């Protein structure tokens, strides 16, 4: 069941450069469990789009199936959305993005949706470097089907019913780095300060931007012994702050040399990121993997921007697509006409 939020807006709400207030980026009221991490991610996406002054209707929201995949209903009510099939959002997003290269694509998925049924499509999405932001709300379980372990559940993590997960978990961030993703980050739904700039950076990035967000399931995986509970995540969090400065804005903060790095994206936006260690380079896959491994070994949840290739070229480039969106082409661009067909007939006689 769903209903719309009242349209009343406080007259003093601040406006972004398009004249929109943050409320213009709202969706319907969430029907997720109170306290579910996914709702914080929805809020972060809404805020990020507001802050980056993205016209809501230029965003297309896509998801698979799961509690997490319901999220797109709860933000950006003025954007088109597509709740597709379980695990197959990547292909739908691929088709949508080649059909109209001018929109901004935002995919939202779950750990079940991505790491199990959708694993095949996920790695192929990375491989193609589709120009989109892909967020996994990772709670280590299947929320919507009532709490079964997912493939990202950590080895030994205890589920709601007291059993320990006997399998090694799949680390989606490491996988994305290895598979060649051009933007890989991890965050925590409870860390708004980091998550918002990460989402803004991801949306400004050209190519595939992946954010794995630990997002506790309060109903099925927030118990003692669960490695993805709020408490366990907070206790082990090793967060590397991220600042995002959109193009045309000045950098006001002064950053200390060494522990941080500044990267300029293709559209002129700037990301300022803090690093796991001094000699860690943001554009080194090896460094990213080493940092992830080191954190994993000590039971830490390393968050922040792990890897970035600001020069990445997306699928539209690889396919040498015309700059005019394919979905706006008509007969003139597409239909060769009767004379050409006559000559084809001639060749077949």
């Amino acid at each position, binding site marked *: *069941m*769903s209903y719309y939020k009242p349209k009343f807006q406080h007259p003093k709400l601040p406006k972004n450069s398009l004249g929109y207030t943050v409320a213009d980026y709202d969706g*319907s009221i969430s029907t997720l469990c109170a306290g579910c991490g996914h709702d914080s991610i929805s809020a972060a996406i809404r805020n990020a789009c507001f802050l980056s002054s993205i*016209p*809501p*209707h*230029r965003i*297309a929201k*896509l998801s698979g199936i799961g509690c997490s995949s319901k999220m*797109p209903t709860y933000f950006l*009510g003025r*954007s*088109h*959305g*597509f*709740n*597709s*099939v379980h695990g*197959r*959002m*990547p*292909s*739908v*997003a*691929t*088709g*949508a*993005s*080649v*059909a*109209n290269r*001018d*929109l901004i694509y935002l995919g939202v998925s779950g750990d079940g949706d991505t790491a199990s049924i959708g694993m*095949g*499509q996920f790695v*192929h999405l990375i491989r*193609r470097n589709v120009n989109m932001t892909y967020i996994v709300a990772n709670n280590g379980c299947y929320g919507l089907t009532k709490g079964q372990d997912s493939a990202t559940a950590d080895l030994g993590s205890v589920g709601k019913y007291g059993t320990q997960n006997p399998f090694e978990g799949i680390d989606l961030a490491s996988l994305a780095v290895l598979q060649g993703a051009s933007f890989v980050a991890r965050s925590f739904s409870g860390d708004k300060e980091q998550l918002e700039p990460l989402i803004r950076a991801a949306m400004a990035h050209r190519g595939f931007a992946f954010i794995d967000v630990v997002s506790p399931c309060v109903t099925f995986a927030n118990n003692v012994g669960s490695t993805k509970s709020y408490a366990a995540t907070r206790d082990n969090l090793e967060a590397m702050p991220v600042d995002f400065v959109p193009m045309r804005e000045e950098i006001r903060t002064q950053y200390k040399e060494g522990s941080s790095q500044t990267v300029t994206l293709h559209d002129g936006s700037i990301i300022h990121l803090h690093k796991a260690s001094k000699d860690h380079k943001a554009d080194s896959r090896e460094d990213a993997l080493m940092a992830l491994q080191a954190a994993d070994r000590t039971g830490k949840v390393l968050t922040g921007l792990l890897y970035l290739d600001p020069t990445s070229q997306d699928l539209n480039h690889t*396919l*040498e*697509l*015309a*700059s005019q969106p*394919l*979905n*706006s*082409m*008509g*007969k003139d*661009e*597409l*239909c*060769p*006409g*009767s004379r*050409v*067909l006559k000559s*084809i*007939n001639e060749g*077949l*006689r």
Partner: protein
Amino acid sequence: MKQLEGVNDFVVKFANVNGTGSASANHLFAKAIFRMGVPVSPRNIFPSNIQGLPTWYEVRVSAKGYLGRRGGVDLMLCVNPQTMEDDIASVGPGGYFVYDSTRPLAPHLKRDDISTFGIPLTEMCMREFKVARLQQLLKNVVYVGALAALLDIDFSILKDLLSDQFKGKEKLISPNVHALEMGYQYAKENFTCPLPIRLDPSVIDAPHIRESQHILMNGNTAAALGAIYGGATVAAWYPITPSTSVVDAFSKYAERMRIDAGTGKRNFAILQAEDELAAMGIVVGASWNGARAFTATSGPGLSLMSEFLGLAYFAEVPVVLIDVQRSGPSTGMPTRSQQSDILAAAYASHGDTKHVLLFPATPRECFDMTVQAFDLAEQLQTPVIMMSDLDLGMNDWMSPPLEWDDDYEMNRGKVLDKNALDEAETWGRYVDVDGDGICYRTLPGTHPDKGAFFTRGSSKNDMAVYSEKGDDYVENVDRLLRKFETAKSYVPVPKVHDPIPVKKPKTKQKLGALFFGTSASPSYEAVEILAEEGYPIDVMRIRAFPFHESLDAFVHEHDVVFVIEQNRDGQMRQLIMNECHIAPDKLTSVLNYSGTPITARTIARQIRRALNATSADVVKLHPETA
């Protein structure tokens, strides 16, 4: 011994080993007959293998212009020792057998009711050509030369075709022409040429073919051109025989015709997906976003696309799918033809779903129906599946030429653009404003504050708001049914022909026959054979599902209706029974599902037998293969 006779009326079959270059030589043979103006229909019968297994090529020549398989073999050309025993046995009495006599024919294979011609193909080529590869390839050209003498093929046409084939590789022309001449000379010197079966372009009884200036092309290429002309911009696929050549051809034409002249960039995107699920997902995503998108697949791929087809049906997203049907799962038989995905396609997916199907019977129809599929999918906002098959898709067919009307405008269906949204007072994605079950769509990115909605499967009300209320669901699926009714008036109507006059009918029963796709040609032929024998049969060629009302009427107007198709379970018959509420004993199956296309003789034989049988037996008739 009486030898078979016939001018422009015989069946030649080649028995080869695949991967030895026989395909292009055999094609040369068929194309030469076509260029002479004699109706011809060649068919590849090939294994699911790249090299070393038996493969056949059957060429039917028919003065009257019958393009389906007739059944039987009049002249067998065998260069495959593995299959020689069966091949020689398959020649009809009075027929002809041509073989490579470098190795003598085993005595137990000799038949005295057929004429046998040995040509030492291997020996001749070893002697004449130095390069090993040429020795093997040109054997095939030598036998084409010999057949030219035996059957009276115009030699200059063969030479022209070789020049066309080797344009840009002129060095290859002279050894090929030499090989042709070697075969021709050998036959002239050693046999009485021509045979009593032979070609003569001056006595053709098929004016409809000559007048329309037929072309020779396969259905997959025609479908690919249909996608180009129909404005498809996104193609996603996963390779599977026999559908692969649809996207191959689309790619070839798109690289020629869809490159932006100014920038050199592409006005199309082709994505080789990781599997058919993804291929269909890409099509759904692209169509949701307003591009014309399609995929092509065969049986197993159709199964994998089933979940997405259901979503597209409920979410009302246009989809164009070209299903080039083959025989069943796994590998092997899949390189054989069938019409056996009918039910799987009509009802693909979970929940209450029905899909629009188109049934082309010629390459020309593959072209036209592919264009139409894009219009229908967007008008009806639903998947449209074009049901081709291996026989039509991969074999060369004589077809009326492709035609294009430059006034054609794509019918994009009910899509609201920015202006329309500005004017609209209210709008709900699934509100049936016009009462035809088809609602108004909006595309992402169209308007800053109007027209956005969340696309999802079945849990929604007509305003596209999430709902799990039973009433909302029922209202929605009932409307989808209304839309399917509307589709009846949009899809191609069945083709009926004037009945063939029969002087003294041998039966009082009113007989009818229903068929579709590649079953059509041999069915028309069988009906003519039976008319001559005193059995008048009215025919209707089905071209689409949902069925047109006239199909219902046709069934009711006849006492016995034969449904001719190429699968085991009589799937079209079941679909008709189910959708038109027709009692089972009204419809009699005529079937072939051996993997090789149905023949006119098989159809005639099964109908003959059904007419002599009691009505109870009729339905249970065991199908024969040919």
